């Protein structure tokens, strides 16, 4: 039998001025199931709450309805009150007779009647409430960071500094990411390696950080606080524990024609290599496509020369399974392919290069040792033309519709650095708009124009073609309203950036969503910029959207702080208003799992008794309450009506409908 108590609040005169509270509490006293109904001036006050607590005990109430302000205001308060009096906090319903009634109606008669209906509706719902207990799960106090660029490094260091273990999984043989390839960074022009490599070393030396380089995430199972991840360690054919990084193997390798991807394929490297001098871990790796020994069985020179006896041609991919409480995705970006942009002649002219290639050409550790030369003939270029927005802000479908955000600034940086080092060089920049929001960014760009005399031309480039060894850049000058053709020695394309392609596969494994441009989607564009809709997964860096280094670092630290907050908990308390399947009626059709945005639903083959001492095995849905967020999408999709939602069950809502429609 229900023993419901109704508590009507005056809210001073906020409610009582328009709603006849006495009439409401009297009317409700006669509702079936209601054993106690009173009104009071301020229910949320100390005294009001005490009044509720006393009544719960005195009348042995099974549930309470508080007719007051919006549940968004005081539902939590009254749930605590109920709990303090020994009632399950989910046996509380609120009738919103302030925001939805007294504040918007003037007529006392009308408002009182509506308040009675709202209160009755809440009572009707409450008759079907069930005590709910929020589930608790433990938390594995270790984080996984996927991607070892500056975003991953920063997140890992922050989490580790807070005292938690972190694993970094990096698909390349070394951490460092794109930032390791850069020469200088805007707007301060400090050398990228100088600020990045100490952080890489910190990662390697941190006792809480474990780096899985040349590795990939293979499988992800579990949920927030309890992820189980299988990591694939690709065969590097070198024993990491023995290799000292001395480099003797590299000098002795006879197969030296592999393209050096760290240098954007601008020069070559041996089949056994260390990507760059400051690589972490400083361990060689063999490219199996290029290694003579691995391809034909003959050679083995590196093994003979290796003093540490680290070469292992028989090494295989291996798998490790690790547990984590939280995951940070920091998979970064790559420049887009230029195959759709034949007009710039990138494929046909060696001296048409991308900005990232220019970074390598200007870097002291790059293929030209930092002397800026033309890739075709090694000559010093005298006229250099930059083209901005190559593939960015492109709605034609060839490129990307978004602004890549970093190109305006790095082009200004390149232009400035070239003019500084080679004052005899003429530098032109074709731009659509120059976008420089950011601290000291516009000042930086203005310096390029005013102090360094970089020739900015507003207009798009239509064509780049080779004429007698000169690159003719044909474009429009919108300010002077004329067509221009600039004979150049080197053309640099500020190429759009896009998420690293590995992110697509990873998103599926993590059940996180991806937008039409393959950027990972945050849980809320404004208020949850580093969280994912999937609890326990966080985003850092360009995988979420174009960003420069300061923004990436800020986001990585934000993600880290979220991870630390999560790992600091011993138990995670869930929201008990989650979905659940009725195994008797579930047919295992899988439709619910398809609509679940969180991947909370799995299927189990279970034995059921079917009478006569027989059993039958059936596939039924099972909801993980720690993952379910309680949206209810599955309940409506389920064709057999087996899915329901605690706290908002179909029966409860139908009861509310009936109560409202009762004339």
């Amino acid at each position, binding site marked *: 039998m229900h023993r419901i108590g109704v508590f009507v609040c005056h809210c001073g005169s906020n409610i009582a001025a328009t709603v006849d509270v006495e009439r409401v509490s009297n009317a409700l006293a006669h509702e079936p199931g209601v054993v106690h109904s009173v009104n009071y001036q301020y229910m949320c006050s100390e005294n009001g709450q005490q009044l509720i607590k006393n009544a719960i005990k005195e009348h042995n109430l099974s549930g309470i309805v508080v007719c007051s302000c*919006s*549940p*968004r205001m005081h539902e939590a308060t009254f749930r605590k009150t109920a709990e303090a009096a020994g009632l399950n906090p989910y046996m509380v319903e609120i009738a*919103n007779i*302030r*925001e*939805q*009634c007294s*504040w*918007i*109606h*003037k*007529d006392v008669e*009308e*408002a009182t*009647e*509506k308040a009675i*209906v*709202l209160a009755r*509706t809440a009572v009707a719902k409450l008759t079907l409430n069930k005590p709910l207990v929020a589930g608790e799960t433990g938390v594995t106090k270790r984080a996984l960071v996927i991607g070892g660029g500056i975003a991953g490094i920063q997140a890992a260091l922050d989490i580790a500094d807070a005292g938690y273990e972190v694993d970094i999984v990096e698909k390349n043989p070394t951490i460092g990411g794109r930032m390791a390839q850069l020469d200088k960074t805007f707007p301060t022009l400090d050398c990228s390696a100088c600020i990045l490599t100490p952080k890489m070393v910190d990662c390697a030396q941190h006792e809480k950080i474990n780096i899985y380089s040349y590795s990939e995430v293979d499988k992800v199972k579990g949920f927030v606080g309890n992820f189980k991840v299988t990591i694939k360690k690709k065969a590097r054919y070198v024993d990491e524990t023995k290799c000292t990084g001395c480099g003797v193997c590299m000098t002795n390798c006879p197969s030296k024609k592999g393209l050096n991807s760290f240098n954007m394929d601008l020069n070559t490297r041996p089949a056994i290599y260390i990507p760059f001098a400051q690589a972490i871990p400083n361990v060689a790796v063999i490219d199996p496509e290029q290694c003579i020994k691995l391809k034909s069985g003959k050679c083995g020179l590196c093994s003979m020369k290796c003093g540490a006896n680290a070469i292992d041609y028989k090494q295989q991919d291996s798998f490790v399974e690790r547990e984590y409480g939280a995951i940070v995705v920091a998979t970064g970006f790559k420049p887009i392919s230029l195959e759709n942009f034949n007009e710039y002649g990138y494929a046909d002219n060696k001296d048409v290069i991308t900005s990232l290639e220019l970074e390598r050409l200007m870097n002291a550790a790059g293929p030209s040792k930092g002397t800026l030369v033309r890739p075709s003939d090694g000559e010093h270029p005298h006229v250099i033309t930059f083209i901005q927005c190559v593939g960015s802000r492109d709605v034609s479908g060839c490129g990307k519709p978004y602004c890549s955000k970093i190109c305006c600034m790095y082009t200004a940086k390149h232009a400035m650095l070239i003019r500084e080092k080679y004052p005899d060089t003429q530098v032109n920049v074709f731009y659509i708009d120059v976008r420089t929001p950011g601290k000291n960014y516009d000042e930086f760009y203005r310096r390029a124009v005013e102090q360094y005399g970089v020739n900015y031309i507003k207009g798009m480039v239509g064509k780049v073609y080779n004429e007698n060894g000169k690159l003719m850049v044909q474009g429009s000058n919108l300010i002077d309203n004329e067509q221009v053709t600039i004979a150049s020695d080197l053309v640099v394309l500020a190429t759009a950036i896009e998420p690293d392609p590995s992110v697509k596969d990873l998103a599926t494994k993590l059940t996180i*969503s991806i937008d039409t441009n393959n950027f990972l*989607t945050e*849980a809320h564009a404004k208020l949850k910029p580093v969280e994912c*809709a999937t609890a326990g997964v966080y985003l850092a860096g360009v995988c979420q959207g174009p960003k420069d280094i300061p923004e990436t670092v800020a986001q990585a630290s934000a993600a880290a702080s979220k991870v630390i907050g999560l790992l600091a908990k011993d138990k995670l308390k869930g929201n008990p*208003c989650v979905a659940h399947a009725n195994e008797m009626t579930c047919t295992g059709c899988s439709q619910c799992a398809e*609509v679940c*945005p969180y991947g909370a639903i799995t299927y189990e083959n279970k034995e059921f008794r079917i009478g006569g001492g027989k059993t039958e095995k059936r596939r039924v849905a099972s909801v993980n309450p720690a993952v379910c*967020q*309680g*949206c*209810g*999408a599955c*309940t*409506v*999709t389920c064709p057999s009506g087996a899915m329901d*939602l605690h706290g*908002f069950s*179909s029966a409860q*809502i*139908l009861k*509310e*409908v*009936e109560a*409202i*429609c*009762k*004339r």
Partner: protein
Amino acid sequence: MQEIEKNQKKPLIVAFCCNWCSYAGADLAGSSRLSYPAEVKIIKVPCSCRVNPIFILKAFQRGADGVILCGCHPGDCHYSEGNYRTRRRMGLLFSMLNYFGIEKERTRIEWVSAAEGAKFSAVMNDFAKTINELGENRRLEDLRCKD
């Protein structure tokens, strides 16, 4: 006869509001004292996608004259894509109801954000006006299971 009945019976309107946007929008309408007719009664659901077509059928069967469904703006659903499902699902239901003779003006989906108190009140005023003009929903009368 009909005229008299119309005057006697106030229309009944059920409004389903998702917890994250529209319910908060209704609260804002309240705290901004933006009135709308008392015949509108709100049922809170976690997300607009929690609303089963059966709830709406039940409301009409029980004598509701109009049912309105409010959710977050497309793209803003707290559960990321719930309201897209709602939109597709309800599109089908509403045309089916129309086919059954329940005028399609008696059902509506509106996207109301937590900041749109004024929109909430305007939508409800407009919807109530439409329902008043349509009069009582007699179509499912025979099916009504009145207690």
